[in-house]
């Protein structure tokens, strides 16, 4: 592997990603898509910063939202404090202040949290996260209480190179620039001696100590730096939404970023980006369709933990390895054959969940209720039996065809590994 951060191949990938990010709003002009893209950009930076801990240093944190939230609050307060005195150029730089706030929080809290790794670290970050969230409700002057703190990102009358950041498209451009800079910086960090030592501390702390590195110090530095990038993400969110509530630093936000990074794939640098795209799209698209989206999302997460603990990025990596070995052709018909029964199974399960949701949250009236844009009589057995039958057929078919696919999959994998050795 080429050690240079900007080898020719990587430069091409980076540039095409940046070009794609800038080209997207030219094609998709709707305001809905632009806000969706903004959120993806913010979450990508946030989850990448999270993966600096979980993926690179092996630290499972349950309180990462603290850095994100403090960065967001610092940014919005600074924005309000500058007020008329600033201009668009200062506004564009404000996320850096958010990053500094995250860095400061990392310096302070990292001292307590990084004394231990492993399970203890997870519990301590959980406690610290709860503590900061509880504190935020104690000081309504700073954290705005229930209503949060709001601001206005358009400052003054003049523009900077024609940008005032008022329209969401211009904000999107700013987010892309920041997200790109942060991504490059975080990737560069993985190539530095510190990044390498973080991997060593994750894989074998004893040995890292033996070679003469202070593992506590490495963990501390990684927490501080990851707090910096999380703070930048928080600053971007403050500018983008123009409101920061106490929810940005509570346990729910910490949980979401963990889910995003894990679903995307913590073993790969680009994994959290995939996770951010997938989860944000799911949240907004499926969340708009059904109230049960969190349940689906939780079940999807459990499925990923049990079936593909490497996340989506690892699935992609395996397919790539198969393709390079010329074995992908062997698997493709099996993938195609498995798709149909899995879709049937999903349809049955979703039908059952939606029916129960409609029955339990409905008004209890006798008439037909609207479930999945169908008018169904919930009190009659017909829709329930249909959903049950579809689920049953789905389970049988998936077991039958999926079993054959698994057989072929194992055979292909052993060929792949056999070729290597």
């Amino acid at each position: 592997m080429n050690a240079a951060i900007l080898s020719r191949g990587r430069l091409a990938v980076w540039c095409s990603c940046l070009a794609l990010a800038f080209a997207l709003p030219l094609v998709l002009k709707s305001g809905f898509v632009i806000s969706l893209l903004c959120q993806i950009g913010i979450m990508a930076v946030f989850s990448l910063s999270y993966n600096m801990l979980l993926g690179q240093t092996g630290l499972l944190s349950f309180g990462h939202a603290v850095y994100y939230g403090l960065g967001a609050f610092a940014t919005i307060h600074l924005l309000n404090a500058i007020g008329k005195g600033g201009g668009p150029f200062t506004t564009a730089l404000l996320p850096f202040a958010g990053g500094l706030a995250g860095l400061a929080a990392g310096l302070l809290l990292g001292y307590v949290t990084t004394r231990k790794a492993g399970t203890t670290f997870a519990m301590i970050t959980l406690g610290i996260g709860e503590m900061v969230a509880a504190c935020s409700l104690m000081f309504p002057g700073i954290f705005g209480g229930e209503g949060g703190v709001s601001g206005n990102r358009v400052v003054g009358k003049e523009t900077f190179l024609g940008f005032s950041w008022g329209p969401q498209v211009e904000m999107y451009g700013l987010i892309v620039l920041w997200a790109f800079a942060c991504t490059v910086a975080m990737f560069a960090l993985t190539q530095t001696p510190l990044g390498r030592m973080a991997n060593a501390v994750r894989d074998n702390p004893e040995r890292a100590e033996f070679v003469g590195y202070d593992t506590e110090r490495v963990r501390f530095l990684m927490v501080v730096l990851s707090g910096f990038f999380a703070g930048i993400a928080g600053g971007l969110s403050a500018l983008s939404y123009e409101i920061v509530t106490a929810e940005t630093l509570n346990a729910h936000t910490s949980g979401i970023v963990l889910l995003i990074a894990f679903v995307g794939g913590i073993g790969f640098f680009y994994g959290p980006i995939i996770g951010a795209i997938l989860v944000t799209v799911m949240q907004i698209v499926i969340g708009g369709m059904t109230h049960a989206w969190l349940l689906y999302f939780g079940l999807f997460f459990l499925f990923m933990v049990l079936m593909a603990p490497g996340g989506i990025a690892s699935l992609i990596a395996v397919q790539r390895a198969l393709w390079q070995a010329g074995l992908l052709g062997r698997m493709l018909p099996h993938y195609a054959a498995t798709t149909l029964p899995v879709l049937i199974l999903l349809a049955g399960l979703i039908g059952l969940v939606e029916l129960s949701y409609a029955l339990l949250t409905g008004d209890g009236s006798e008439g037909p209720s609207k479930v999945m844009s169908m008018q169904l009589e919930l009190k009659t057995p017909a829709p329930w039996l249909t959903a049950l039958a579809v689920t049953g057929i789905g389970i049988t078919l998936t077991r039958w065809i999926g079993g054959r696919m698994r057989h072929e999959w194992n055979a292909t994998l052993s060929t792949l590994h056999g070729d290597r050795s």
Partner: protein
Amino acid sequence: MEFIVISLLNGITYGLLLFMLSSGLTLIFSMMGILNFAHASFYMLGAYFAYQISTLVGFWPGLLVAPLLVGAVGAAIECYGLRRAHRFGHVAELLFTFGLAFVVEEVVHLIWGKVAVDYRIPAELDGTLFTLFDTSFPIYKGFMMLISVGMLVALYALLTRTRIGLIIQAALTKPDMVEALGHNVPRIFMLVFGGGTALAGLAGVIGGNAFVTEPGMAAAVGSIVFVIVVVGGLGSLGGAFVASLLIGCIQTFSVGLTISITDVFALIGVQLPEGSQVARLTITQMAPVLPYLLMVAILIFRPRGLMGARES
């Protein structure tokens, strides 16, 4: 004086309830190395199951059936989910229980709705047990104490006086050796997980109607239980006991104290500058933060916890 005695009684009641949760968590942790993130979710399930049973056949059958149901659910989850995740290492296990907590909360939303359910104290336990300095002490709190202490004694006897307890203790430290002697260690793990979750379920049955049964109850108590396990020392039942009572008392005392930080410092002769937001905070307002502050202090001054034997 009245305030101290009543708060102490309330604190001990609450602390014993917390210990029912933290003892299960500690047992599961020291045995399987799993930090069960969903432990408080089983507490919530216990409360909801008991509510459902109480609407059908009354409180008393629920007291027995609900914890058993929760334990069965826990054992099934260990058998079909956790054991699978175990192959991918500790992080996968932790994430599995984390996702489980997420799903349980959503399922509770789905079945029982997003608002609190009307889970009541049974009529025969509704009343005053005794009156102390004009403040009445409800029968139900005494009943909670009785159940918790009875549970503790039973647990202690089970672990130290019975054959299965001996095997569990042996499997704690030397699982390979126990397996080599012909015991089914995975089944012991399943039993311990089921037993730990059943304890949490029982805590839910008697805690759900004393406090409030709502979908947020798991999250509210979950992080406190983690604080207890850290403060008491990972894997130490005795430590968990002391820490539970300590945190229970801290929480009940702090919600009753309306003196501000300025007053506290004035007691030791330090005059704080007037007007700052911190100085005007009362102990009551600080109540939610105190357990976490205690945890941070313990971590700085005694990282292995009050009675923890090992560092990590």
